């Protein structure tokens, strides 16, 4: 390296130093430690004892008392999380895309509509949880009151096992505004020339959407998909506040079981193993999303 390169390296690292230090102390070391803990029995109040892959075995494949494999609560929470993701992500992405397309039509007052749709995403999670708990309230909630006024006896939205998760999925749609904004920005980047060319070729509205709009915003769709996966797999606050994981673990999410293992049962090793499995799942799913994007994501200009 030349003298100039050394000097630039020194300067660069100086500017990066806060991040490097922070990375070591709040990322690298905790991550390594967490992996180490996942291989131990660590009830917090005693020193960790290495037990190899025991935590993973107990979580994933060891025969349990009821004759099944792995930890049933672990699989239940995993299933719940995936189910929620499979319901909330597609409906959220579709709704936000539809809204963005409509908003992009350029009718008068669209910025007001856009703002109103965006407003719910600003609401702190606690406040969201409170108002929706109140609206979902079986006896006094406004949703069941409105149903009652047309003669339908609404279910216990948060107290019946088959309705709790759908209720949470429905509630998640309230927050699509954030994604709508991102889609709108992407839509505005679609060159008008492409639309004109398509029109000249005789393409109708739907055809234009399929062959111009969607391909052009596919990077944005992809970005929202990946962020959505990473996000929904870590859902915690809303179900924790609204249902505590119930009824009968119907809304017991993965991160909630992780949290309980760490801070209720004080099984830090077990919780760390869960964290690593979660990490792995996110990596794999993101990898699949990236790989599949080669098929349908088109970047402009190349």
């Amino acid at each position: 390296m030349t003298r100039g390169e050394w000097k630039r390296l020194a300067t660069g690292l100086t500017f990066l130093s806060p991040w490097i230090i922070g990375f070591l102390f709040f990322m690298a070391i905790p991550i390594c430690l967490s992996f180490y803990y996942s291989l131990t029995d660590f009830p917090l109040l005693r020193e960790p004892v290495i037990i190899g892959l025991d935590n993973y075995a107990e979580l994933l494949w060891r025969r349990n008392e009821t004759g099944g494999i792995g930890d049933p609560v672990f699989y239940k929470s995993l299933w719940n999380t995936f189910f929620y993701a499979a319901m909330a992500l597609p409906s959220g992405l579709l709704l936000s895309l539809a809204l963005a397309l409509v908003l992009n039509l350029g009718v008068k007052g669209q910025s007001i509509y856009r703002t109103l749709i965006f407003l719910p995403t600003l609401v702190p999670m606690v406040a969201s949880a409170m108002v929706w708990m109140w609206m979902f309230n079986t006896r006094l909630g406004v949703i069941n009151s409105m149903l009652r006024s047309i003669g339908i006896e609404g279910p216990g939205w948060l107290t019946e096992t088959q309705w709790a998760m759908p209720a949470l999925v429905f509630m998640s749609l309230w927050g699509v505004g954030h994604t709508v904004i991102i889609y709108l920005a992407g839509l505005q980047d679609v060159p008008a020339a492409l639309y004109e060319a398509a029109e000249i070729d005789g393409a109708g509205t739907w055809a234009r959407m399929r062959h111009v709009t969607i391909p052009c915003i596919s990077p944005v769709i992809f970005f929202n998909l990946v962020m959505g996966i990473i996000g929904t797999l870590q859902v915690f606050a809303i179900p924790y506040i609204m249902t505590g994981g119930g009824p009968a673990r119907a809304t017991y999410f993965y991160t909630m079981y992780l949290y309980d293992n760490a801070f209720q049962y004080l099984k830090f090793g077990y919780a760390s193993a869960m964290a690593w499995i979660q990490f792995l799942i996110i990596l794999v799913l993101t990898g699949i999303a990236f790989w599949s994007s080669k098929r349908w994501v088109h970047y402009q200009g190349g």
Partner: protein
Amino acid sequence: MKSRLTIAQKLTVHAALLCVCLAFVFPFAWMVSTSLKPLEQTQELVPSLVPRPAQPQNYGEVITHPKMKFPLFARNTLVIALLCVVGTTLSSAFVAYGFAKIEFRGRGVLFAIMLATMMVPFPVTMVSMFAIFRWMGEHGLGNWLGTFRPLWVPAWFGSAFSIFLLRQFFRTLPVDLSEAARIDGCSEFGIFLRVILPLSKPALAVVALFTFMAVWNDFLGPLVYLQDQEQYTLALGLQTFQSQHEGTEWNLVMAASVLILAPVLLLFFVAQRSFIEGIATTGMKG
């Protein structure tokens, strides 16, 4: 998509958007409506949107409620938020300058590592950080648990998201200005301070805004690291208040929720453009 819509199509669009917006806004209206109701009205089986009579004293009751120390929680949240906003903005700008304007060996690798850290789920570090903090406390290396420190100190070392945002922004600034300053003998830090930072006010505003929102919203962090009720943030305080009040006074809970929501809405209306641009940028250049 600039299209020539017929009047009928335009009306349909307006009608659809109106319905959608009504649905989206309804929970807000219901929150405020309930917050102004006397307790008996919240227990009606067929509630009405309009409280009769409106009882704004509910808000006073929430603020002075003995079981929920609202002013204390607000102060706690504000302190943490301020520390995080200042820390994140300054440190992230500093680091982003290094990534954006200094060409050095290995920069790409380090940048990739930084981006990768955004994919690490919080639980991975949360559990071991808790153990580390506890160990430090027991071995006299400083008290972190039972203080605000775990919630704001990391912010002073840069946030990957903010660094990324600012780095993208810095790269759009013309090189000539920095070059001219460099020729004039200005140090890199001087360029950073006197040339780049003043030009970056919009981007810095976005970072400050997003950081504030994240702190105001944070639930899991305070839940894990804060143990003394005196230190609770608003989010944690409200949740504790509600969960310990079986057969809750929903009018008070709604009033508290409105109070937690209000600063954020205010901030939004004041800084609207920053918000929208900030979100749009993350999705576009992501």
